[in-house]
């Protein structure tokens, strides 16, 4: 089961995006963090020990939730909204 469960506000329009090469769906208004953690247990692999990370504070303070896009850009998942066609990498 994914780390985040939707419990309300599920009427929103869907957004298609790519996660680790696979087509996925999120909802308009989802942060990247919500879009990914409703499907996966991680956002990235930590650089030093190779362990998975999934964010911590969700308010842009702890800087734990960085994610990569396929083109190599890095974005902070808790404060970036998912957009159609976004291509994200969690490995």
């Amino acid at each position, binding site marked *: *089961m994914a*780390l*985040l*469960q*939707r*419990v*309300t*506000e*599920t*009427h*929103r*329009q869907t957004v298609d995006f790519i996660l680790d090469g696979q087509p996925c769906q999120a909802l*308009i*208004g*989802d*942060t990247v963090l*919500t879009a990914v953690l*409703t499907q996966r*247990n*991680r956002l990235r692999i*930590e650089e*030093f*020990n190779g*362990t*998975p*990370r*999934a*964010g*911590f*504070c*969700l*308010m*842009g*303070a*702890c*800087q*734990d939730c*960085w994610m990569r896009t396929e083109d190599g850009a890095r974005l*902070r998942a*808790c404060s970036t*909204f998912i957009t159609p066609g976004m291509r994200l990498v969690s490995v």
Partner: protein
Amino acid sequence: MMNSLSPVIVGAGPAGIRAAATLVAAGLKPVVVDEAIKAGGQIYRQPPDGFTRPKSSLYGFESRKADRLHRLFEAIQPQIDYRPGTLVWNAGANHLDLMAPDGTASSLGFSHLLLATGATDRIQPFAGWLTPGVFTLGAAQIALKFQGSILGPRVAFAGTGPLLYLVAYQYAKAGADVVGVFDTARFADKLAALPGLLHGVGHLAKGMYYVAWLRAHGVPLHGGIVPLRVEGEGRVQGFAWQGSGRARRVDCDAVAFGLGLRSETQLADLLGCRFAYDDLNRAWLPERNLSGRSSLPHVFLAGDGAGIAGADAAELAGERAALALLEDAGHLVDRRRIALLERRLQRIAKFRHGLERAFPLPLADWGGAALADDLVLCRCEAITVGSLRQAACDLGVTELNRLKALTRIGMGRCQGRICGAAASAILAAELGQQPGTVGRLRGQAPVKPLPVVTVSHEDAA
């Protein structure tokens, strides 16, 4: 002369909004810079467009306050220069460096600056705290309020502070399976704190309501616990704690954790505000008096960003600090209003003392000395507790910035926001001293990571 005033407010939570409204009422047009995309701060954070839950559902008992503040901000928006989604990443003597939502950098001058930078959860690392599924209490609340999602579905709520019971209650009401509330404070602490807490009868009543509700709905409430570890590889599978003299565990999918709040003081630091160790907050804070004046003549401080007192105090302090700003800029101000604001702020301060007694930081049995050497303290760069102790011991380090230079603690992406308090506790424990005696991590720009494209952008001002 008054027309040449260019006041800037950083933060659009309760303190920043009240401050802005006060300046607008005096005929000024402040710039309001806020990192969030919508005003309200963390406590009255508004969901993105397209979300439809009513405010009563989002903010519970606080929905009327939230609504009033949101409406106030809407009303003054035409009279302010509002910069949402904008990071203040550096502060100089009379300018701020900004990054706009589109990533462009610019510089913003000010004649007067009012900082209302808010707070984040206070954290103490413990075994397994890096496991996906361990989040702060604030994070648990944001997931629900801002995204309509919950951690879990089986969640353990651990730590201490008023937020612990509130978020557990909100989660249980939203359908989460709250496997328990694990309070590091003891019931006896709360009894001892009662006299102070009576200064805030309303808050006390709400707090008791959450506890009673949780108990009535069969949620196990544990007091005086010590978190032992989060179990699980790759994701949370259980939570283990020490309570009533024995080690116990429970299955769960997530742990929401926090030890009260800590102020975001980086900008005050970069500006050169004088800091002092505050015993109540157990933190170094920029000095401010009841009027919100800092040690610098043109810098004012309001709200939880300069010491934790909660949202009601933040509203009062925002207005009070704005009046101080106006007074110092030569405006006439309403003395009776000032006296009223200060009386109310003092009353909340007494309640706040009570809260600290009710939810004390678990330093005695869970402080720096108790942390294992192999525990990763810095989630940014994987610095361990042991490497700090070794530097302190081998190299005779007695001050936190020296420890930072030698071990990199506080040098990662978060600049020590998460690990700073624990690093201080560990060093102090090594030296057999109190945390306030080993100094504080100096703030450095950028306050948060800055994309290289932002600062290297051709068109940036």
